[in-house]
């Protein structure tokens, strides 16, 4: 039975775990990491690397921890002399054909071979006087290079393509020490989720062309974030070097994306690093805009929000945070508001082996959040309201020429909160805001799981999060301690207006988020 619990002892630590759990997972719970290569929690276990051999009392020989299930009363020794000796033997063998080119290998610093050899391998080799196995580098696909010389044949990539992506283009070719990872004839590794093989590779054998020789692993800062690519909301790490996002990698969340992310999301980061940013608040001065300070800009915005009558329109970016969408919406509560969020569309690309995981058609991370906060998805309908609106707020939306023309002709006051310089010739105010890599915030994914993302790089110039701008206006003129100074405080203000968010804090969300309760009827707001 899955629910039946058993007591086992691992390296002297007694723990209680579900019956049938592999020893390697039980050991994690006991705080013991069993060194391993072929095992991966999201892939079937073939037990081929033989690195996770552990001593199990009463077993006749060492057992692979990845496929040996725990049973009541089992006593396991991960760090006994015989287990360590076996691991040292495996490491020695893995290294005989492995080039020691760590100084030019992208994996160095996050390489499991490097780590385990350093931890418990032999200091020198006995494999002298022989040439190492050599095979040329192969181009596997749009973003994947295969360096066979570094390969330890753990077959994680083969199993990912076969069992998870259901597109078995990779295989083990040849036998014995001539073996290498082959790709089926006439095939490319161009599956929409193929990039995961690079993450899965425990050594530097499968490399991302996008990241090739870009940075050393130890120079990277990792920030827990959420993919802004679609409504799936895969958990990610933004890897930055010197304030530049250089790579996105999946961050495990068993409820959302397990250990994977799609290639679209993986490559969708260059906009975070754009240099052509609005760096100071700009106010309209005749036919041109001039830079000013935030106090002046906020005064002008407050005048508009409090002075103008009639209806208002909010045109919001697909990537705006829940906090920004919510507070901007609240800022306009005295207006008849038509709010719309941009929803770029693309092709859906599911990952066959993980039910409920796909690159979604709707390429916006916060569609559910926007809808809960009263934003609609009918962009054209919102644009039709512009000519009659007294106030139009553009929240970093990506405007096309038609939209720009409509705004240029708008009779009301136009305020643009922008990351990059908009056209917006007649905007009253252009206010610099941060993009999602430069702020803390939350997104609500398609399953109403609200998840936090964190600031990965510094904001440019005077840019502030959009919620800060709206929060200052909401708090009224002058210094006001009630204005939110953090995303968490901004989030707390949402609950006052939208009960679904009440009683939850940023801290409650942790690193994996939580699912919002069911929405009461009518709370969705006007569409």
């Amino acid at each position, binding site marked *: 039975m899955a629910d039946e619990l058993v007591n086992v002892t691992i390296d002297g630590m007694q723990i209680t775990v579900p019956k049938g759990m592999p020893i390697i997972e039980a050991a994690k719970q006991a705080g013991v990491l069993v060194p391993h290569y072929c095992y991966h929690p999201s892939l079937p276990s073939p*037990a081929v*690397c033989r690195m996770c*051999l552990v001593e199990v009392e009463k077993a006749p*020989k060492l057992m692979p921890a990845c496929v040996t299930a725990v049973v009541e009363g089992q006593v396991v020794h991960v760090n006994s002399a015989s287990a360590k000796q*076996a691991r040292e*033997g495996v490491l020695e*063998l893995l290294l005989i054909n492995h080039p020691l080119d760590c100084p030019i290998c992208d994996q160095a610093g996050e390489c499991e071979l490097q780590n385990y050899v350093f931890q418990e391998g032999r200091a020198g080799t*006995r494999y002298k006087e022989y040439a190492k196995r050599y095979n040329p580098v192969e181009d596997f696909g749009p973003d994947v290079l295969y360096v066979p010389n570094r390969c330890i044949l753990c077959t994680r990539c083969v199993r990912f393509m076969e069992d998870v992506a259901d597109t078995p283009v990779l295989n083990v070719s040849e*036998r014995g*020490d001539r073996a290498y990872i082959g790709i089926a004839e006439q095939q490319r590794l161009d599956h929409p989720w193929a990039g995961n093989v690079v993450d899965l590779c425990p050594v530097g054998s499968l490399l991302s062309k996008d990241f090739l020789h870009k940075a050393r692993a130890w120079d990277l800062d990792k920030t827990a974030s959420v993919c802004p690519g679609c409504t799936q909301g895969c958990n990610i790490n933004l890897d930055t070097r010197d304030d530049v996002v250089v790579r996105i990698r999946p961050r495990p969340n068993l409820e959302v994306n397990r250990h994977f992310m799609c290639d679209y999301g993986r490559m969708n980061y260059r906009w975070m690093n754009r240099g052509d940013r609005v760096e100071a608040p700009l106010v309209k001065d005749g036919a041109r805009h001039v830079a000013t300070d935030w106090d002046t800009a906020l005064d002008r915005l407050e005048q508009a929000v409090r002075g103008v009558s009639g209806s208002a329109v909010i045109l919001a970016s697909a990537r705006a945070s829940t906090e920004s969408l919510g507070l901007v919406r609240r800022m306009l509560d005295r207006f008849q508001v038509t709010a719309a969020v941009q929803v770029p569309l693309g092709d859906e690309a599911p990952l066959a082996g993980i039910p409920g995981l796909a690159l979604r058609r709707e390429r916006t991370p916060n569609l559910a959040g926007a809808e809960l906060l009263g934003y609609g998805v009918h962009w054209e309908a919102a644009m039709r309201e512009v000519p009659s609106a007294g106030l139009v707020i553009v929240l970093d939306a990506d405007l096309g020429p038609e939209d720009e023309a409509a705004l240029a002709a708008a009779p009301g006051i136009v305020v643009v909160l922008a990351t990059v310089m908009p056209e917006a010739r007649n905007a009253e105010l252009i206010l610099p805001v941060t993009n999602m890599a430069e702020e803390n915030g939350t997104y609500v994914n398609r399953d109403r799981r609200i998840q936090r993302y964190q600031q990965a790089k510094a904001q440019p110039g005077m840019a502030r999060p959009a919620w800060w701008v709206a929060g200052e206006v909401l708090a009224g003129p002058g210094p006001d301690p009630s204005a939110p100074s953090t995303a968490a405080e901004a989030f707390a203000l949402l609950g006052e207006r939208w009960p679904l968010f009440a009683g939850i804090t940023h801290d409650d969300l942790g690193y994996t988020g939580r699912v919002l309760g069911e929405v009461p009827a009518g709370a969705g707001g006007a569409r």
Partner: protein
Amino acid sequence: MGYPHPSHPKENVVLSKHFGDPEARSYAGWVKHGGYQALRKAVGMTREAIVEEVKVSGLRGRGGAGFPTGLKWSYMPKQALRPHYLVCNADESEPGTFKDREIMRWTPHALIEGCAIAAYAIGAERCYIYIRGEFTEPWKVMSAAVEEALANGALGDNVFGSGKRIEMMLHRGAGAYICGEETAMMNSIEGRRGNPRIKPPFPAVAGLFGMPTTINNVETLAAVPHILNRGAAWYKSLCLGNPKSTGTKLVSVCGHVQRPGNYEVTMGTPMRDILYDMCGGPPAGRKFKAVIPGGSSVPIMTIQEAEEALFDYEGVVEKGSMLGSAGMIVMDDSTDMVYQIWRLARFYAHESCAQCTQCREGTAWTTKVLERILAGKGKQEDFQLLLDLSKNMTGTTICVLSDSCAAPVVSGIQKFRSEFEAYIAGSREPVLAAV
């Protein structure tokens, strides 16, 4: 009869009685020799009764491991809620072994009958016979025999009118040694790469196509009709040594003997009788030096050990080796043991499926070290290195291929160390070019 030479009086011909008799290949000829009586009898018995009979007979797996056959069959689920499969392992690729080949060549119907009985006993309606790819003639003979058996109602939807259904499929291998390992064989039949699978699950739980499966060797299955015909007690009485080893065993003898070939002996026959009486001793003017008794995968025995051993599962283990497949490789005093061990290691390095690290890299490295010794570049440290590698390769992998590579190396160093020393010291002319 006997093939290629007449039976020796010290042999006990049961399975090999009709070797060399072309008539026995045909259905009619086989029936004339008493064939298919056992199958007719079996389909009138219960499954359990057949399994019990085989258990009592003491028949053990002839492929190498010597696992009790009846016990193996009894692991199959009692109720066939899902399809059960029988796989006959005819991928005889163990170096020095060529007994299954002769069974299939001369007495194909003995195997078909044995398969049919076993399939019925384990609740299987389909049997796969996985024939080694290089066995062209046995495959042709078997194909014709299966056709004939089908035409005569020994196979098919209604076996001898009993209402029992038994299909037989011949599957040809493509030349990989490792496909003789039972789980790799199942992968191969399924159309996958022939890699051994991790156990558990054992085949009786989830085998071929994920269904309960039993895998038996050709010689094991060919013995089953005799047990049903003549009784378990008779089979059990065929025993000259340890009572746990019963019946007769085909021995394939090759190497430095006067008369190489297959011999069928009662379990427990002294090895001395096989070597000197049946095979006629060493070539003129030579002396025996070493014997690998059970195919290349078992430890090497010195001739002294071999002469003292009784030829059964326990007797050979007592003398430091294993009965294995009983493919006996005999070497006389002209043999260069280091060279032979290198040749074996090279075979395993070539055939490693590349899954497990110890096997993939260890077999190749072992080969290279031996190669270096043979090239006159060996060092004293190489002994420790070879022994370390062998230890690392024993009992640590999914299947026993790497153990099989280590066995001759370890036993070779133990028993013939002076020959290694001679190369290392330079007192023996190098036989390989420097690497």
